[in-house]
């Protein structure tokens, strides 16, 4: 009976030594932050696990909600309503592929950017898709966005010493995968919606910056239509195209193909 506390103590010592030895291996050299850039957030995330896990979940983010209706059309169409409809339909298409789907909001509420990111970052083997409807742009077209590449010398995504991912730069480690996902979705959208670009754009969309997973934004044009019928008619086609693109991305995600 008296040996039990001693054995626990020894296990703790061994675990501590192992952690100290492992610690330097996770350190990465950090380039200097550019002048004028805000300081690193104290919030951090664990670095992505290797080897890569299977893609099992999709976090769908119907943007805005609550008091924030997003883009508003002259006829009263609200972006927050349309994207919730899109998300519900897309959920069905993705679940048909055996994927688990999580919505960042189910009703007319408005989680913060960080709350939505927390939902995504709590998942393993997930991708993140935020859905938007624009104020402008050619009606009936769809544009897909991922974050732009960080130039050499810009601040790193992981913190020194710990190797943990910085919350405010969580997307930096996933830019290539996000770009690939955006390309696959944009191709599908260009095939279905005439006038849509053939390639995605790299734009600093705020919601994507704090996502520690492959992440893209999809924006449909636009709330300027006289009523929501044309947008509702786009929804099934869009859901089918996104689901196909996500299916193609599973291979990229699980094999690490670039």
């Amino acid at each position, binding site marked *: 009976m008296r040996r039990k506390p001693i054995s626990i103590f020894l296990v703790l010592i061994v675990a501590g030594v192992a952690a100290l030895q492992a610690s330097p291996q996770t350190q990465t050299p950090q380039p200097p932050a550019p002048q004028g850039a805000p300081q690193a957030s104290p919030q951090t995330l664990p670095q992505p696990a290797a080897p890569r896990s299977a893609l099992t979940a999709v976090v769908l983010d119907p943007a805005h909600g609550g008091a924030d209706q997003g883009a508003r059309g002259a006829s009263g169409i609200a972006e927050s309503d349309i994207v919730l409809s899109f998300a519900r339909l897309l959920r069905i298409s993705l679940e048909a592929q055996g994927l688990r789907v999580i919505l960042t909001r189910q009703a007319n509420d408005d989680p913060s950017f960080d709350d939505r990111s927390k939902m995504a970052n709590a998942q393993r083997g997930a991708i993140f898709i935020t859905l938007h409807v624009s104020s402008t742009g050619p009606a009936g077209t769809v544009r897909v966005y991922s974050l732009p590449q960080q*130039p050499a010398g810009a601040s790193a995504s992981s913190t020194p010493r710990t190797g943990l991912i910085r919350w405010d730069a969580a997307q930096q480690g996933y830019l290539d995968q996000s770009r690939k996902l955006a390309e696959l979705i944009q191709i599908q959208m260009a095939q279905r919606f005439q006038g849509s670009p*053939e390639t995605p754009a790299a734009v600093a969309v705020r919601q994507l910056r704090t996502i520690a997973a492959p992440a893209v934004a999809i924006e449909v044009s636009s709330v300027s239509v006289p009523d929501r019928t044309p947008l509702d008619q786009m929804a099934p086609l869009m859901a089918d195209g996104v689901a196909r693109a996500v299916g193609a991305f599973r291979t990229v995600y699980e094999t690490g193909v670039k």
Partner: protein
Amino acid sequence: MSRGLKTTIAILAVMVVFGVITLPSLRQAIQRLSGPPKTEEQARRDVMQVPISTPTDVKVKAQVYWLSASSMASLEATTIELPLSADPVERSKQLLVALITSAPTPAQHTLPPDTSLLAFYLQPDGTAIADFSDALPAGTPSGILSEQLVVDSVAQTLAANVDAIRQLKILIHGQEAETLAGHLDLSGLFPVSSPAPVPPPAAAPTPAATAPGQAKPTVPVATPSAPATQVPH
């Protein structure tokens, strides 16, 4: 004619002349008073956005990027003649004021016309800091595309006309804003790179696309599929 009558006629004549002289300004004052009262934002803009002139001003043909007349999803360069300073800070202010106030048509505005440029700084490393009034986020249509076009129009106008600027930081009323109008991340720096040279325009401008005193518009150089508009950190 009595002396008193002469004096009266002389006084009346003086009063008529005085009235004729002051009539236009009186009319303007009445029109000003009868108009809608100025908001605080408009009053500030009237003070801040007076034409900027410096001793080194030289009239040059500047390229300013507004929305394309043919596609509201892209920008196009319009060449206009502007008095621009040799000082990069004053030159940048002059360009941004022109960008806000001198769009060829109202539909081609990128920044809302009641936006004020409150301040502009240029750091030695080429980082420009442009501080705009609250009217910028308030008047920018919400959306990734529309917000991207606003920032692109500022960055590309500076890139085309001011050599010293390498990157751009946008502040709203002196503060760092999380987004421009709900989508575009304003926490980082936007690269300011010179646009690729464009071929000379092949056709004459349409009247709708060219305001008086403005030169031919060039072909669009920015599309929504153009890569990398910002450097998040």
